[in-house]
């Protein structure tokens, strides 16, 4: 049973009608091919028009879609011989941040992903993708490990943000994030970050200060969630839709602002409708981005990465 979003209501109705017809034809042997084809075409057309002009708030819903491929899906599909590595060597292992060694198309890499889970049990286990300091410290440790052995780092970012908790603050959430950003910026190896769902604030940039930042078409990347922004600036969480518009958090917006490098197109109706194709598209984009980075000496690579971030949001030279 597919999960439909609010704005997909008419598409949901059509698709359930199609399913119904198919069941009937199987049971009664009636030939309804023509009717099914007609309805399918209609559903596709509606999907196409709806998804061609998704509002930023609708994109936020797609980005958070419960069936959207998550970090574990990318690790499973893109990384062979995946060997998870745990722990921050100080306090705990944080299941919101997964990481380990493996191979991407034959090349040894280090992969890191924020995982939010896909059912109640796994969501609780992964703390809904909200990392504690231990997660960022684990990421930093692994990025440094990758640096020591010359392994490119691939990150898959999908988090509503860092976990706002008492112990998280007591153990230095802010410092852990700052050090993870620093580890990304200082790494002598290529870092390719992909925003696959929600790129939530400091918790996202901690793993996304990379040489190349890819972003899925319907992913969002923002300094604060639309809901959080609405409750602060509008003093009304109900204004999340307006906040989503104002924040300019879509992949197209970020590309236009030159804060990300590439938008990866999603299958019609969002990544969850054709997981295989989106996993492949991300793999292709990474495979394309990696060789030019591997060709650079560590010093040049680091300098280029710094220059890239330093240029962001600067006044264009006149």
């Amino acid at each position, binding site marked *: 049973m597919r999960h439909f979003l609010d704005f997909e209501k008419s598409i949901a109705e059509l698709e359930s009608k199609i399913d119904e017809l198919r069941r009937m034809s199987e049971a009664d042997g009636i030939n309804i091919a023509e009717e099914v084809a007609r309805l399918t075409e209609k559903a596709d057309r509606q999907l196409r028009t709806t998804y061609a002009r998704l509002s930023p708030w609708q994109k936020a819903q797609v980005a958070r879609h419960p069936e959207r491929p998550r970090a574990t899906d990318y690790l499973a599909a893109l990384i062979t011989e995946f060997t998870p590595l745990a722990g921050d060597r100080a306090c705990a292992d944080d299941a919101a941040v997964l990481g380990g060694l493996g191979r991407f198309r034959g090349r040894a890499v280090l992969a890191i992903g924020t995982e939010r889970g896909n059912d109640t049990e796994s969501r609780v286990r992964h703390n809904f993708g909200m990392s504690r300091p231990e997660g960022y410290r684990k990421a930093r440790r692994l990025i440094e490990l990758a640096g020591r052995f010359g392994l490119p780092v691939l990150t898959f970012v999908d988090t509503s943000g*860092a*976990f*706002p*908790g*008492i112990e*998280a*603050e*007591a*153990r*230095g*959430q*802010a*410092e852990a*994030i*700052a*050090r993870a*950003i*620093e580890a*990304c*910026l*200082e790494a002598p190896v290529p870092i390719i970050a992909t925003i696959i769902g929600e790129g939530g*604030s*400091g918790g*996202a*940039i*901690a793993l996304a*200060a990379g040489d190349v930042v890819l972003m899925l078409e319907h992913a969002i*990347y*923002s*300094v*604060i969630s639309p809901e*959080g*922004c609405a409750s*602060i*600036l*509008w*003093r009304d969480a109900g204004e999340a839709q*307006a*906040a989503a518009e*104002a*924040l*300019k*958090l879509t992949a197209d*917006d*970020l590309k236009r*602002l030159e*804060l990300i490098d590439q938008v990866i197109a999603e299958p019609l109706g969002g990544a969850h409708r054709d997981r295989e194709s989106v996993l492949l598209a991300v793999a292709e984009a990474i495979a394309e981005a990696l060789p030019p980075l591997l060709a650079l000496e560590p010093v040049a690579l680091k300098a280029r990465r*710094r220059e890239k*971030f*330093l240029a*962001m*949001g*600067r*006044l*264009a030279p006149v």
Partner: protein
Amino acid sequence: MNWLSEYVRPKIRTLLGRREIPDHLWHQCPSCQQMIFERDLERGLKVCPHCGHHMRASAAERLAWTLDDGGTRIELPKVPADPLRFRDTKRYADRLKEAREKTHLPDALLVAHGTIAGHKAVVAAMAFEFMGGSMGAAVGEGILAAAQLAVLQAAPLIVYTASGGARMQEGAISLMQMPRTVIATRLVKEAGLPFISVLTDPTTGGVTASFAMLGDIQIAEPGALIGFAGARVIEQTVREKLPEGFQRAEYLLAHGILDAVVPRPEMKATLARLISLLTLKDAA
């Protein structure tokens, strides 16, 4: 103990009645509620003489209290104004204009260079009075400019932080100031120069989670609120009462996040001593 506010003040009150005392000469301590004479407050660097409460200070006051003769302010790089054309209940462009008119500051950061008790230094001070000290491109560029100036002058960089976090009205551009200011700290450190972060009330969000927490030395003022997430958000998430003194300077010190909590009147001397110890190997 301050004789004026303890003794004279009540006397004046009985003599003149409450309303005749010019209000601007007296301040009430938000912590102990006692009255403080304006001149004493200024002389005491805005620390309550009764209870030691550190009141919030402006960026200009920070520079004046730290640099000998206040140092020399530098002009900070211009950045695109309102790049997202952001509008909530008000236009960001208007909010900026109002903040500039109210504070006479260009944005939420001031930078100056000079000496601290004879030791050369670059000092940056965040202005909480300017849109809650929020960090957008202007603050990011300012921190970078301060770091570059420190490198150029081979001087330590001191940053007084005071910020509610990222400037939401600049969206992801404000988020990118986190890596950008982290790079600033790297520039100073790679030049072999000390970066000292002085965290003041309040420092939260994206500022805490970037350059503020990367000091070679991290000092806070007593009682300063320092954290990543806001207390209200934490309470709503964990549905627990927050512990006493949570996210205060002393709490962070006890949890190993700070080097020291230093009262304001001792700050300048402490900074001068730290600079001397870190950069003058032989002071004989």
